[in-house]
């Protein structure tokens, strides 16, 4: 069942089109990774799902309810961590966490205490003295301490140190075990790779790819590295192969996933002594999307 579902979601700010027909689905019990560069529309999509922004056209539904009209009903069942956490300078972290938990409706003191200890936050300090990471912790603790069915996290680890980032990942793993749904927006690809069941890639207000990581991997090329006894020739003539690096007895290739068999057949005749192939990681996937079709990165790499 889809917990979050948008259909042709479009959001315009004046003449600027921030979201252009977004189709997104987060299923029950899955961790969905929402990735894309800055300004691609991740936060706008999330704010529309929260009913803070109203869709220009298309629909945004959470738990089958309209994100704009039924905002309060929806919010009773979700927890949210914004990307840029701005707090009240003259309130302490402890006060803010309590307020947030209270506004959510439930009150779990032991969990609050445990999380504050885990994230090593001093709740008696005024928010103005907190660093970006500490403000992020306040929002994270408040979100994780409250009971929710769906967690919407907008770049939740920005500003956290690696130790805290690790801790955060454990918390998400726990949520996953409890079969909670998570929408995790991020541009830290290793994080998404570790945590997410499925990912959606957004660029310039459009979803350009969705699917499980293995789905997406089929779409791109595998890295292949080998050494042979005899001198290798004619690699360039093979279909679906790009030669990255070639010496007399060794080569590094990028191979379209459909052509792996042909390449293997071809190279065995040179007496292979060593073969190493690695699936593309998310970073490669991401880069291929941004350097391939007119993204800004192609010029950058050239």
């Amino acid at each position, binding site marked *: 069942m889809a917990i979050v579902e948008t259909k042709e979601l479009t959001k315009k700010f004046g003449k600027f089109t921030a979201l252009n027909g977004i189709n997104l689905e987060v299923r029950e019990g899955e961790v969905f990774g929402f990735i894309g560069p800055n300004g691609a529309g991740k936060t706008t999509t999330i704010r529309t799902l929260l009913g803070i922004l109203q869709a220009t056209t298309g629909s945004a539904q959470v738990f089958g309810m309209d994100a704009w009209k039924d905002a*309060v009903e929806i919010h009773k069942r979700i927890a949210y961590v914004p990307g840029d956490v701005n*707090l009240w300078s003259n309130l*302490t972290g402890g006060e803010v966490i309590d307020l947030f938990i*209270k506004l959510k409706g439930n009150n779990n003191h032991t969990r609050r205490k445990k999380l504050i200890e885990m994230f090593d936050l001093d709740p008696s300090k005024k928010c103005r003295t907190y660093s970006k990471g500490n403000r992020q912790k306040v929002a994270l603790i408040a979100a994780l301490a409250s009971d929710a069915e769906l967690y919407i996290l907008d770049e939740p680890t920005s500003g956290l140190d690696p130790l805290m980032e690790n801790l955060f990942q454990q918390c998400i793993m726990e949520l996953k075990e409890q079969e909670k749904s998570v929408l995790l927006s991020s541009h830290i690809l290793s994080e998404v790779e570790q945590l997410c069941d499925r990912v959606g890639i957004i660029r310039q207000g459009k979803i350009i790819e969705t699917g499980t990581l293995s789905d997406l991997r089929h779409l791109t090329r595998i890295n292949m590295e080998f050494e042979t006894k005899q001198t290798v020739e004619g690699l360039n003539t093979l279909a679906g192969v790009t030669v990255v690096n070639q010496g007399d007895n060794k080569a590094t290739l990028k191979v379209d996933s459909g052509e792996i068999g042909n390449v293997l057949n071809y190279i065995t005749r040179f007496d292979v002594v060593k073969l190493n192939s690695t699936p593309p990681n998310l970073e490669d996937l991401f880069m291929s999307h941004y350097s391939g079709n007119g993204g800004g990165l192609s010029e950058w790499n050239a």
Partner: protein
Amino acid sequence: MNGTHNNNGRLMKLIFRRERIQIPIWFICLVGISIAVPIAFKEMYSTAADRAAMVITMENPAMIAMLGPLYGAKDYTIGAMNTNMMLVFTIIAVAIMNIFFVVRHTRRDEERGRIEVIRSLPVSRLSSLSAAMGAAVIINVLLAVLTGAGLTALGIESMNFEGSMLFGACLGVSGLFFAAVAALFSQLCVTSRGATGYSFALLGIMYMLRAVGDISNETLSRIVPLGLILRTQSYTKNEWWPVPIVLVITLVIALLAFYLNSRRDMGQGFIPARPGRKTASVFLQSSLGLSWRLLRNTFIAWVIGLFMLGASYGSVMGDLEGFLENNQILKQAIMISDKYSMTEMFITMLMSVIAMGATIPCISMIQKLHNEEKHNRTEHLLSRTVSKSRLLSGYFVLAMIASFIMLFISVSGLWIASSSVMDNPIPFMSMFKAMMVYLPAVWIMIGLTVLLIGVLPGKAMLSWVYLGFSFVVVYFGKIMQFPEWLQKCSPFAHIPELPVDKINYTTLTVLAIIAVVCIVIGYIGYQKRDVQG
């Protein structure tokens, strides 16, 4: 060293670039009003006899408390009249401009993390403060010269070059003084709100001290810089000596600010931070609780401030009464009705001014919501189980409660002080009614603010403009005989002036209905629009 110096120039340029809209608007208003008023005076009080009649009003202690000492009463020229009626309020406006200006470019930039970026560049530690103060010097000198030149250019007989320049200099020097005060508080306080608040508090205290001093104690007035600068007697005796004295005091305050700035860490103040509560109290557990917590200090400060404002007006009532007792001619001349004493009639005028003062916290309480939205903090609440109407209500309800409390506190201060000094005290209920009748006008201002935030959030500042407009038309409207329709553009002008007027329930009901309509449209608009931030 030379490079650092150049960079200070660049920072100053940056300030002027950022100020390219605001400061010119202030200049147009300040210089414009300074020049327009004498022209109007010339029209309205063209003969010496007209002006002599005005002297009788201006001599009374209540007017002196409000406007400062009266000089040149024997030969009340247009120039003397201008200084008497305009100087204090123009100085206050210039002070407000300077306080906002300096805090904006020092503590607020620091709070927003902008100074951190600047500091990482090859500039000295004092660069931001010195750029802000340098810009303040330029602005105030320019204001003094423009006002002086503009007034001279009017060619009014009693307003010569020296007097005009002195009038201008009073504005410039006072402006610099408050720029220095704001710079000092920007070092002491950690927040820009605190720095602005303390600076305004000092301005208010100085105004009140000099009011007391002007009536009863010349020495007191001379100790207070705001009082001292009023002793310049421009267009009459043209006493220049207070100008350098205030400049020296300004310099001392500014140097203290620079010293403190060089001593402290970035982002810190001199008021030490105590550890706060680890958990939220029972009051801070709802969106209403949060808005109360955010507005609490503002609320308390205004309760104290308005009580003192009421009390300071009240404290001159005794003198006013005595003054009237001894002046039979005036008593007959100005008394419109036998039923009401001069004091009571004076009160009606006070009430409208106090009501507008009490509107400031009410508007600012609603504006706080917009401020929260701009800083992306309403998101925390709206993404939880707080609906937009509940969020807005948190601020709206407090503003409505404040409208009553602020008026009540002011009238209490007025009554307590006045009844202790008057031989025939005015009954509390009579004052109370005269004050509370202004509630519908305050509600319209609240309603307008809700409307703007709901429908035109980008233009929310317009409610301040409208309040400023109301003050000008109602307060100056009578002296300067603005056309009736212009005065009626302000809700405050429609309020019956009790006890002299009869209470008019129809008008009050219509005003209240307008307020309700604004509020309803504002609520609907707020629910329908996107959250910004």
